[in-house]
């Protein structure tokens, strides 16, 4: 419940302030969003599994975002930014899908 409230507050804050992303960081924002999405779904699955832990969630969230952005940044510097971001999105997408599948099993027992 409090998590849903937090999400709502975050969206409202984002809409209210419309923070400007620095131009240099702009390419890494979508990757960061996908990585955080992975962490959020992982946390939700862990919650449903009954093994949710605040600390693990926070650490996984931050590290996911930072590592994904760092990988893409490194790829940009090496000239393979597009390919690396594709790889990151593929891996994160697979994780998101399997996590969502587990969540679905929990919610619908199917």
């Amino acid at each position, binding site marked *: 419940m409090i998590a849903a409230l937090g999400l*709502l507050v*975050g*969206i409202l804050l*984002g809409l209210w302030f419309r923070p400007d992303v620095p131009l240099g960081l702009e390419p890494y924002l979508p990757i960061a969003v996908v990585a955080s999405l992975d962490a959020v779904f992982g946390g939700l699955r862990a919650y449903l599994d009954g093994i*949710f832990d605040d600390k693990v969630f926070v650490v*996984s969230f931050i590290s996911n975002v930072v590592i994904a952005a760092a990988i893409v940044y490194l790829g940009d510097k090496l000239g393979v930014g597009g390919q690396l971001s594709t790889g990151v999105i593929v*891996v994160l997408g*697979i994780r998101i899908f*399997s996590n969502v599948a587990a969540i679905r099993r929990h919610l619908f027992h199917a």
Partner: protein
Amino acid sequence: MPEHLSRPEAQQLPERVTMPLLTLITQQSLDEDYLHVAERQAAGAPRPPRVRPHRTAAVVIAVFGILVTTAAVQTSRNADITDASRASLVSQIGDRRATVSDLQDRIVRLRESNVGLEQQLNQVTSTEQDAASRVTRLETVAGYVPVTGEGVRIVVDDAPNGDATQAVRDEDLAKLVDGLWSAGAEAIAINGYRLTVLSAIRNVNVAIHVNSRPLTPPYTVEAIGDTRTLQANLLDSTLGSEFFSLAEQLGFVYSMHNVDELSLPAARFPRLRSVQAGTSADQKTHMDEETNP
């Protein structure tokens, strides 16, 4: 690698090393840390005191919400710019396509004009060749240039008895020369004097003058022409046969034989006083006349 060697090593390695990548990603989609923490708690580790449950998580979720919203806002804000740049690119593509088709049209036009110019060039070239051959022909006929070629040399002398009535006269030589012209000779010289269209052969007293220059016997008539037909044609022609019958009657000493290479000098040219250069229209009519002399 042989099977029996790799088997024990594979058993020693942890599962995450040997597992295929996709399987690994799918199976470990949930962070292992949750499991570790859960196992530790199940083993009896003291649960950390939780005063405000999940508050941190809520803050992080809020951050996530900000992140997502920012990304969405950013994307929608950039949509206008992206559209504008795409539209400008599309219009640029249209412009360039028009330019390309213009250039292709120009290529076609230039190719057509190229073809036309080539035809003109061919015409001009053939005209030029005609003119060049005409110049050569005229130069030969007019004695403008020295010429060489195979031909016939005819040597004629007065009868040996010295009778003045049996001497070679202008009309005899003129008959011979006219016979040679009609037999197909292209250039003729008598005693080294080139005959042209203006040349005259006439007697002044006993001496024969060619181009107003006196000649002394024997008279050497050199004619350039086809050696295979020139002599026969000469004998066939009216004037030629007249000359030879005359020579037989009057007892001229004459000989005629083919020469592989004759060299005839250029003619001397009279000074032109009244002639003026004609127009191209005159040239046209004269050309037709020259083809059938």
